[in-house]
């Protein structure tokens, strides 16, 4: 097990180093001078040059790259060019929204998926299965921002159960914040849950055809006991793979839904920073996202080994 973990950990570090190089290079190539964006198009050449020097952007790229990484290792992210505040402060505010939102969406998505997927698989080819799969097809087809608008119209404007948008901040109380995150979480979880439900169903059905399921039935286990005791764990590998991908997507790819609900999450922060050519913010946030994705994959890899003892054996 420890060899397995060590190998995975080295992969994790290598991926992060690679990602940091790619991110830095892309931001170097990206046209647009931060100093020029801050000062506006009317700025004189000398003031632009002075600001460039002040921001430290006149130094060679390699020096700035190692500066950045060195700072990261000491927990120092630098200051935003556009807002003159520490990047860590900007990111912290965004993380307080994005991470709880991602977790809430994931819980919803997995609940929807397991309930629908298992029920449909247990009732394979019956009316309930066909109906549920039809509904999930609908869930996949609906764009999440449109669903978000519908949810706001019905649950926030008509029923007034939830706020239509915005985020009160965690100092305003736990339930108030959760309340503000429920509608965006539902909007995000519907599509992902529908996809995951279909994967759960097909994976369970595939495992049901395995020989060991016949053995379990020959032991005298009922169809339902076989599903819970023998099929489920074997069927979880593809489900967990997709769950990992979906969680990464929830952390980084929710800009549109965040905007519909006026949530200043990580996606919105990075989008604003790109428009401002606030390269230091972009670099740090994107690297952080990459780190979260890589760590999610790391956790998924460990889960594989926990679920299937054969994987551990192959790696050692």
């Amino acid at each position, binding site marked *: 097990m420890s060899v397995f973990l060590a190998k995975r950990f080295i992969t994790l570090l290598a991926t992060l180093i690679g990602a940091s190089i790619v991110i830095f290079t892309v931001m170097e190539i990206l046209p647009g001078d931060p100093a020029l964006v801050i000062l506006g198009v009317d700025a004189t050449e000398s003031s632009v040059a002075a600001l460039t020097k002040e921001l430290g952007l006149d130094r060679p790229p390699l020096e700035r790259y190692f500066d950045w990484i060195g700072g990261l290792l000491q927990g120092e992210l630098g200051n935003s060019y556009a807002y003159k505040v520490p990047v860590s402060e900007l990111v912290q505010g965004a993380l307080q929204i994005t991470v709880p939102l991602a977790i809430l969406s994931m819980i919803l998505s997995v609940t929807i998926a397991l309930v629908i997927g298992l029920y449909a698989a247990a009732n394979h080819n019956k009316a309930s299965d066909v109906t549920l799969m039809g509904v999930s097809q609908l869930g996949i087809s609906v764009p999440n921002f449109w669903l978000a608008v519908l949810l706001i119209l019905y649950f926030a404007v008509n029923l007034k159960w939830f706020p239509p948008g915005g985020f009160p901040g965690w100092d305003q109380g736990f339930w108030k914040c959760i309340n503000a995150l429920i509608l965006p979480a539902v909007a995000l979880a519907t599509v992902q849950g529908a996809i995951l439900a279909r994967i759960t169903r097909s994976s369970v059905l595939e495992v049901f055809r395995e020989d060991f399921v*016949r*053995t379990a039935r020959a032991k005298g286990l009922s169809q339902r006991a076989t599903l819970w005791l023998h099929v489920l764990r074997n069927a979880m590998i593809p489900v967990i793979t997709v769950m990992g991908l979906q969680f990464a997507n929830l952390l980084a790819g929710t800009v549109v839904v965040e905007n519909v609900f006026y949530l200043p999450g990580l996606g919105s922060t990075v989008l604003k920073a790109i428009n401002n050519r606030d390269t230091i913010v972009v670099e740090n946030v994107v690297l952080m996202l990459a780190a979260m994705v890589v760590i999610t994959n790391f956790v998924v890899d460990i889960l594989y080994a926990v679920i299937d003892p054969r994987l551990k054996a192959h790696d050692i």
Partner: protein
Amino acid sequence: MTALALMGLLPENASTTGSVNLDGENLLQKSEAEMCRVRGNKMAMIFQEPMTSLNPVHTVGRQIMEPLRLHKGLSKSSAMQEAIRLLDRVGIPNPAERVSNYPHQLSGGQRQRVMIALALSCSPDVLIADEPTTALDVTIQDQILELIQTLVQEEGMSLVLISHDLGVIAENTDNVIVMYGGTVVESGKTDHIFDQLTHPYTQGLFAAMPKVGMGRGKRLTTIPGTVPDLINLPSGCTFTDRCPLASDICAGNIPPVNQMEGSHLVTCHHLQQAVSARSKGLYE
């Protein structure tokens, strides 16, 4: 298929007709819940594919304990003791250690031994072995069959052995049913059948066996043609297309059951020709 039908484990869209009698009860009339109490308890099964018949994510101990806890209501610790005893019984060395192994850590022969331990766990009345040695190499085949034979005698179980290996059948059975295309073509005492091969298919099976001293370079005898499509079986004798004795009557009419010596039954339209063909061989 036949074995799965006996266990009531055919796919949902299959329909089973006739009757399966165990202890005077027709299993086909039992509900699914009642069948769950029969399977693994009164009737157990060993499958053809030991490599895939065990759940890869559970230890073998846990898999053997399952029927014990289900049918006998044993506690976890006593089920574990019993599992270790069973592993020892089927000849697995170091059973106390092996019990916490996963199937991938065992060889094919050992996995089949685990399957046998599993089938044996609740001392069933009937043991169905569906080609139990097909996937194993020859030396292991012999050990496994010997093990099954010993256990059957010591536990007083009935054995239903499904095999295409005539040597295996001759050594391990009292009665034989020869089946072709889903129907019984010949049945009787093993000794009678091996002495008096009658049905053209049975004769073909024997002719196809390699014989000691038949000489190098000589081709094995085969039954011409291929197995019929099970969805479009002929309405009469299922062996019609491949039978050297077939005539117009065979394809459309179900052949009569002819009684030979004792309980020896042969299902054929051309019994006399088949009997007289014994000496010279039908497929030369």
